[in-house]
């Protein structure tokens, strides 16, 4: 599946999530809950994803969005919330690449 970032402009992430859901689409939300070091987006930053892989908002400067969107699509399928960690200390995450050297924890949940 290809993912595609929706131009956000003045669009509101949580409002968009609600609209997608009302239109019958699967939706998941990702939220930055912890950061260490020079993480690019502050705690509380959010991203909403729909079932076709479209997303709005950001949880990093673009480095981990792809991986987060994949986890969000998984969460839509199994309904389980996830707490993901990305950063330099995590080999797998290093490949995903937080090039800035920061570390973040991202909570991913389905909108039921």
């Amino acid at each position, binding site marked *: 599946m290809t993912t595609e970032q929706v131009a956000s402009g003045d669009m509101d992430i949580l409002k968009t999530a*609600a609209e997608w859901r009302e239109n019958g689409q699967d939706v998941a939300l990702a939220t930055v809950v912890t950061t260490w070091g020079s993480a690019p987006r502050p705690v509380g930053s959010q991203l909403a994803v729909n079932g076709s892989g479209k997303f709005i908002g950001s949880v990093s400067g673009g480095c981990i969005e792809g991986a987060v969107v994949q986890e969000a699509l998984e969460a839509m399928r199994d309904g389980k919330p996830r707490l993901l960690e990305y950063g330099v200390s995590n080999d797998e995450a290093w490949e995903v690449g937080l090039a800035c050297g920061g570390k973040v924890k991202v909570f991913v949940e389905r909108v039921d």
Partner: protein
Amino acid sequence: MKPDVLKQLNEDRAAKRPVVLATNLTSGDQKLLYQTDAEGQSEVETGARAVFASDKPATIETVDGPVFLNVFNPPLRMIVVGAVHISQALAPMAKLAGYQVVVVDPRGAWATAERFPGVDLVDEWPDDAMEQLQPDRRTAVVTLTHDPKLDDPALAAALKSDAFYIGSLGSTRTHAKRLQRLERLGFTEQDMARIHGPIGLSIGAKSPAEIAVSIMGQITQDLRQEAA
């Protein structure tokens, strides 16, 4: 997230009602907390009180595991009285810094959409405008007209509000006279100490844009250092 939680959260944000979304990071269970709830003594309520005040989300440890408290405070607002040159520089800066900007000026030729693209303009007298706008603790009030007829009523209204920042343009001498006039309206020295006058950080600003930088810097200082 339950759809009704998302719906309620969006309604609260639209109504500018401060709200905290508490999420248990293990179970995914969620709850919305309001300022009235944040008077309680439970771990989550105490934590909610802290994030309302600091405007920074945080994770707290509870007996049920870690809980993330995301805070949705109403947007920051800046009310600028006087559609003058400095306002033309200050309004876009404030927008970039995340403020909703309202420029108040009853003089029709000044507050025009051409001079202030994308800014809310109110062409009423400052006392009526302030009555409508209801400055709160997420609001900065800046008066820039130099004209007591316009600045004074706005300052009086700001002093009666919870505005986190009040600043007024004018020299030390102009400001001293202004304080005398406000005193006659019944404000005490302690009340009037809330007004930054002369306005802005002392950085030797000369041009309208530089003065706008010094004002934006001072507002940021009050917003961030008070909360820290």
